[in-house]
């Protein structure tokens, strides 16, 4: 199975719009599966909501520190050793705790899980797999602030491989940024498609996401979304891409129909008269061509 991951660096450039269109265009062409690795704020399920459940809402877990207040002597050792600022005045902030266990290690009161501070399993979110008319769909939803992003993304991708093993192609929607979620998403994919935005910020973020993807040694191609809104920056992006041997496969013009499509939970390619849809369709076939050479 060939895996295509859609990334952007900057947020809100159109990753999900492109991903949902590719998934829709693959229907009837190739056996496909797809996944949403933007586990903080997943959106793909809003478009592909209908399907037969294969694996329902299993809870995933992570370890977090808890304090047994009846044992705690407020000696302050845990707060002193915690490097994540998660301990304050004998109270754990579960959103900052990374579950390293140093607090439990240094706590002088009690032993094992009977210590005044100890790690306990807590729910960090849930994941699910469904069989849709477009193929197997693997997604997850993290509890806000729960952390465990990397672990959850690994689970989403593992489910995709297990349930979608007969598929020829996988389309994976990624998250913005360049850190932990991105690095976890990139692992094992064949090609990254970068959705770029013509602006000063977009250009700056392109330099950072490209460095990250190149360090991970995964081939990348690009497209420029809303390319006609700031033509001077579109030219700057072309120049940067040429200097860094990043192929720009297509330009997609600004099209108000995209907003309408999002608000009707439809991929833009469902509107064949839309100028954006025509370019996305062309981007789709070019991307497949690149993917097939890999």
């Amino acid at each position, binding site marked *: 199975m060939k895996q295509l991951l859609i990334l*952007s660096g900057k*947020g*809100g*450039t159109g990753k*999900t719009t492109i991903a949902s269109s590719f998934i829709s265009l693959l229907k009837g062409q190739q056996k496909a599966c797809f996944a949403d690795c*933007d586990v*903080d*704020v997943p*959106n793909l399920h*809003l478009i592909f909501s209908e399907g037969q459940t294969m694996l329902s809402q299993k809870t995933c877990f992570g370890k977090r520190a808890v304090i047994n207040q009846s044992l705690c002597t407020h000696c302050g050792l845990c707060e002193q*050793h915690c*490097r*994540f*600022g998660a301990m*304050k005045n004998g*109270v754990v*902030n*579960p*959103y*900052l705790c*990374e579950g*390293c*266990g*140093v607090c439990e*290690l*240094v706590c002088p009161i009690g032993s094992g899980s009977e210590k005044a501070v100890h790690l306990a399993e807590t729910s960090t979110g849930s994941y699910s797999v469904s069989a849709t008319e477009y193929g197997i769909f693997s997604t997850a939803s*993290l509890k*806000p*602030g729960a*952390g465990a*992003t990397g672990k959850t993304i690994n689970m989403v991708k593992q489910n995709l491989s297990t349930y979608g093993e007969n598929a020829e192609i996988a389309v994976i929607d990624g*998250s*913005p*940024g*360049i*850190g932990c*979620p991105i*690095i976890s998403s990139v692992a094992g994919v064949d090609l990254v498609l970068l959705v770029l*935005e*013509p*602006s*000063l*910020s*977009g250009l*700056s*973020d392109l330099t*950072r*996401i490209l*460095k*990250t993807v190149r*360090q*991970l040694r995964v081939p990348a191609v690009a497209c420029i979304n809303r390319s006609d*809104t*700031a033509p*001077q*920056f579109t030219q700057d992006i072309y120049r940067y891409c040429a200097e860094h041997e990043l192929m720009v496969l297509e330009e997609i013009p600004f099209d108000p129909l995209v*907003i309408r499509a*999002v*608000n009707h*939970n439809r991929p833009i390619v469902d509107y064949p008269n839309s100028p954006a849809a025509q370019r996305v369709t062309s981007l789709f076939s070019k991307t497949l061509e690149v993917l097939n050479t890999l």
Partner: protein
Amino acid sequence: MKIAILSGKGGTGKTFVSVNLSYIQQDAVYLDCDVEVPNGHLYLPIENPVVEPVDMPIPSILHEKCSRCRACMNFCAFHALSFTGKQVLLFDHLCHNCGGCALVCPNKAIQEVPYNIGSISSGNFEHVRVYSGSLNPGQMQGSAIIRRMIDQTRHLPNLVMDCSPGNSCHVVQGIVEADLCILVAEPTVFGVNDMRICIDLLNTYNKPFGIVINKSLDTRNYIKTFCREHNIKVLAEIPLSPELARINASGQLAAKDAEYSRIFKKILKNAQALLGPRLESHPDSVQDREVF
């Protein structure tokens, strides 16, 4: 007033609101907490920045002292240490720098050494004090950079913290520090979905917050409906305007224009009203109401 600017969804205009909100205040300090892809410095370019590297302690194994007991490996919650059969091996990109391995080693065979993960640039742009954190590409964890920036500015009264999208630990650090939060949302189905997730997070902290609707359209506005139904304060509505988009895309400050600066003054005024007299009469009241 310490404000955290959040969004859930990416690209809704957090940086746009943050830099302009900083610019219209006389004594504001702008913190770019989106350390993975920081862009505030493009709008508020620092004159003669001071660049401070941010290092994290990572374990260095003194193999001659190591008794191969594997206590470090068994302790590491992030599986960053493994045993090759001959010696302990570190996978540095998995390390969360908790320091546990050095503490647990019975032979003092683990020393911690500094490892550079990024930097903080600070200085002034006109009257705005700017801190901009930046994570090196290829690094996993930017939390330490945000933590360092917040520690350096905690004593300052007027902060604007430009957070990252999503709801990760990065965002939580800003929320914990803030007196109030401003959620920048766009009126689409995706925008409402992501905003709701972010509101769930804010409610667990019991933080006062308001919404700025950006790229607002005359047509059906999902955010307005949602806010009305849930009794959430809309601080301002910024229209979808090609002119504003052009100004922002080119790295200019919209607030330099008298007409547009009114939008940000309105956001600030309405945000202050959210805190109301509570803050004035009890300076610590916000801190007291924090619920972990």
